[in-house]
């Protein structure tokens, strides 16, 4: 177990906790979306840290592939959430 791996994995845990806390406590929808994105980045960091094998060995490609698709899915889910938030605010303004 490498020091580098631990540093990044622990930071991933911190990011997950930070994101979850804000997603639960924030009022503004935009910031909840950001919070969930931070949480996702924490999960990505855990996965990439697990894949790391030190400076000489090549890392495990499977988590890399997972994170790569995760990033693209996260951005499209974010866009969908923002479109939902926009529709919600126009509905509220019409009332």
């Amino acid at each position, binding site marked *: 177990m490498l020091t580098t791996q631990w540093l990044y994995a622990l*930071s991933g845990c911190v990011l997950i906790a930070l*994101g979850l806390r804000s997603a639960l406590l924030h009022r503004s929808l935009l910031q909840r979306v*950001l919070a969930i994105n931070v949480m996702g980045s924490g999960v990505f960091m855990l996965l*990439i840290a697990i894949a790391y094998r030190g400076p000489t060995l090549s*890392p495990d490609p499977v988590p*890399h592939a997972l994170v*790569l698709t995760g990033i693209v899915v996260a951005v499209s889910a974010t866009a969908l959430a*923002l479109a939902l*938030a926009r529709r919600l605010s126009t509905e509220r303004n019409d009332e």
Partner: protein
Amino acid sequence: MNTASLIVFDGLLLISIVSLAWAALATTDARRSVILFMAFGLLLAVAWARLLAPDVALAEAAIGAGLSGALLLAATNDHSRQPATAQTETTRTEPDRRVGMAIQWTVTLLCAALAVALAWALAYAFDSTAKDTLARAVSAHLDVSGVSNPVTAVLLNFRAYDTLLELAVLLTAVLGIFALGPARADYQEAGPIFDGLTHWLVPVLILMAGYLLWVGAHAPGGAFQAGATLAAAGIVLRLAGRHHFGLPAGSTLRITLAVGVGMFLLVGLALLAVGRPFLGYPTAWAGILILLIESAAMLAIAATLVSAFVGGRPNPIAINTGEKP
């Protein structure tokens, strides 16, 4: 010397990342938190590069540091035009506030407990088993996959089903965005300086997308990174106020959005027809079939991301008056 200074580097980088995330989530000003979030994405790209994940770093550089920032800034713009949404913090009574504080502290403590539990699970997982079985399986079969970049091999060959489903998820997301309403207003035409930048930036981005698609077979790169880079070209055109460009119009747009899933299914069914398993490429053909699917996926991903940036059903007026690009 070298390893010690790299550990110091890791420490500084991670402190920056965590404090940017904390600051982005602590402020109530939407534009401020988006700017902080963009810087967060940028440093994540550096972190992935540091952990020898260049494929992921490429995607994060294009999406985390570029596209999602533009997307979120566009969203804050349409909030700031409607001042009514500013939530007035009503004066709360003392017991209410105490309940609020109690909830805040409970949630904070539970989240901290989650972080500790995750760390404990990690320590346990790292210690107990011999891992690597998947990594070994990938490297053992790499020479029959048609490509030599292991990440591309996983995405487009070994786990091609997952990638097909992922493209379906993207398609669903963009259909949801279209269903929720019309696009945001177009940007005003840019001044001469930004316009001058787009004149060479857009061709370079398109070229770069092609390069990443081609290089993905044997080096970091591939359909996702190429699609994100191509989408950046479209978003730059939109930002410059050229709303007839950057995205095909009408039925061409709908076909482009579906072409990734379509090509995947077509290849899968064609393989079934010649008696192979669904998406089980013959080794001799694997390279060319993967390139075919990746080209289609690149176009679909780019169109999806630009549509996401535009933020809704494309404006029909703009389609009719627009000259064919």
